[in-house]
């Protein structure tokens, strides 16, 4: 006899709102740590000054409770819901969207979602939807992750359906090419999220999860960990540097995630995160 845990969706609404505001005022500690380390590693004087200003921006935003960037992004919410949870008090998805609205209002964040992508007649404004990924996992807990994905870097992300013969070299070429093409526009130094395998949409979702993985967590598989390090080295040899003003630090980390794929394919998605890769999480 499994007991069922009841959770009111109001808790989801409140938590989404709180995490959305926090993610926009406080850059994650691992990202700030990597930027501070980058100041020491950068050889270009202009690059170093740029990094110092970025660090200062995050310190001021946190102290004065200001959005770190005017682009508070499109909100992406991951919910890993224990299968023994029963939701009460309304619709779970509605509660997430209501939480995004509430957080945007409370945090003085920008209403950035266009109501309709083809007609663009008006801003969605307070309808402000987000992207919601709900997964069912064992247990009676809920893991929530809220990311505020800025579109400077999102716009420069890319997906390609490689052939199995392209192999690891093909993956590496595509990742480096994507960062080179993005140049200054994705707001470097970047977090590079790479999703390899699965299907077309599976690789893209995997790349999103990869870009949201903490920068101080390396892939547990030694060969992939080595590939992450190799790609970071190649990207930082591109010369793009902080904000594309030239230098050594073009990326802070390369995070790779893999999934089994079809014998005929090798999907690779590269989701770029700007230096302001924002996320916050909570357990319900």
């Amino acid at each position: 006899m499994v007991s069922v845990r009841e959770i009111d969706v109001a808790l989801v609404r409140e938590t989404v709102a709180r995490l959305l505001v926090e993610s926009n005022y406080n850059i994650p500690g691992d990202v700030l740590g990597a930027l501070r380390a980058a100041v020491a590693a950068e050889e270009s004087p202009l690059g170093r000054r740029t990094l110092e200003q970025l660090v200062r921006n995050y310190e001021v935003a946190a102290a004065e409770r200001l959005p770190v960037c005017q682009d508070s992004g499109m909100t992406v919410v991951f919910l890993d819901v224990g299968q023994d949870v029963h939701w009460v008090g309304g619709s779970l998805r509605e509660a997430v969207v209501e939480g995004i609205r509430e957080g945007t209002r409370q945090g003085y964040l920008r209403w950035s979602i266009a109501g309709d992508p083809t007609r663009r007649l008006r801003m969605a404004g307070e309808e402000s939807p987000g992207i919601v990924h709900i997964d069912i996992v064992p247990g009676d807990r809920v893991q929530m992750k809220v990311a505020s994905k800025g579109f400077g870097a999102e716009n420069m992300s890319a997906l390609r359906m490689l052939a199995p013969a392209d192999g690891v070299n093909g993956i590496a070429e595509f990742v480096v090419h994507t960062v080179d093409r993005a140049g200054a526009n994705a707001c470097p130094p970047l977090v590079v999220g790479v999703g390899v395998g699965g299907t077309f949409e599976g690789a893209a979702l995997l790349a999103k999860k990869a870009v949201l993985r903490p920068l101080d967590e390396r892939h547990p598989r030694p060969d992939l960990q080595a590939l992450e390090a190799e790609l970071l080295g190649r990207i930082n040899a591109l010369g793009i540097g902080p904000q594309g003003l030239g230098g050594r630090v073009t990326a802070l980390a390369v995070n790779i995630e893999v999934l089994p794929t079809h014998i005929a394919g090798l999907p690779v998605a590269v989701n770029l995160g700007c230096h302001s890769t924002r996320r916050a999480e909570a357990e319900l």
Partner: protein
Amino acid sequence: MAMSLDWRLGVPESGIAGLHAGDAVELTGPVLTLRDASAARIAHALEAGEPLPVSLEGRIMYAVGPSPAKPGQIIGSAGPTTTARLSRYLPTLLSAGVRAIIGKGELHGPGAAAFTESGAVYFAAIGGLGALLSKQITAASVVAYPDLGPEALFELHLDAFPAIVIVDRAGHNFHESARARWRRI
């Protein structure tokens, strides 16, 4: 040390002409804001020969969509947005008399050439510096298109606003030369 460019009494031609790609500058003076939606409206009006809500002659524009001001603030976070997205509108805006654009990111090809052809300058500010840059803005008001929300046409007053000259009047492109200098691959 950053050079100062002050156009409170009009954009000085000598000041614009003396700027070189790679120069660090501090900008002081009024700007009109630019975003995807407002740029589309302005370009449509110019191409259709309709009057603009405000003249662009001799103006400097800043590509930004600010976040809302908190109580007591002049403006919310207000860093630059990606200029390349506005590339197709740039020749029209520069032909209408815009002297410089402040944005972020790279410009190549026709977008960059439009600056050289009209003797204008492209400045990049640091992307993702929105909280700090908001402190270099001393006044903000909506002058047109209020229905566009953060994409409305604002007039802002900049005070020692930091930026880098990316495309100068001679057509030099700092993003291209900086990358070539540091590339090791």
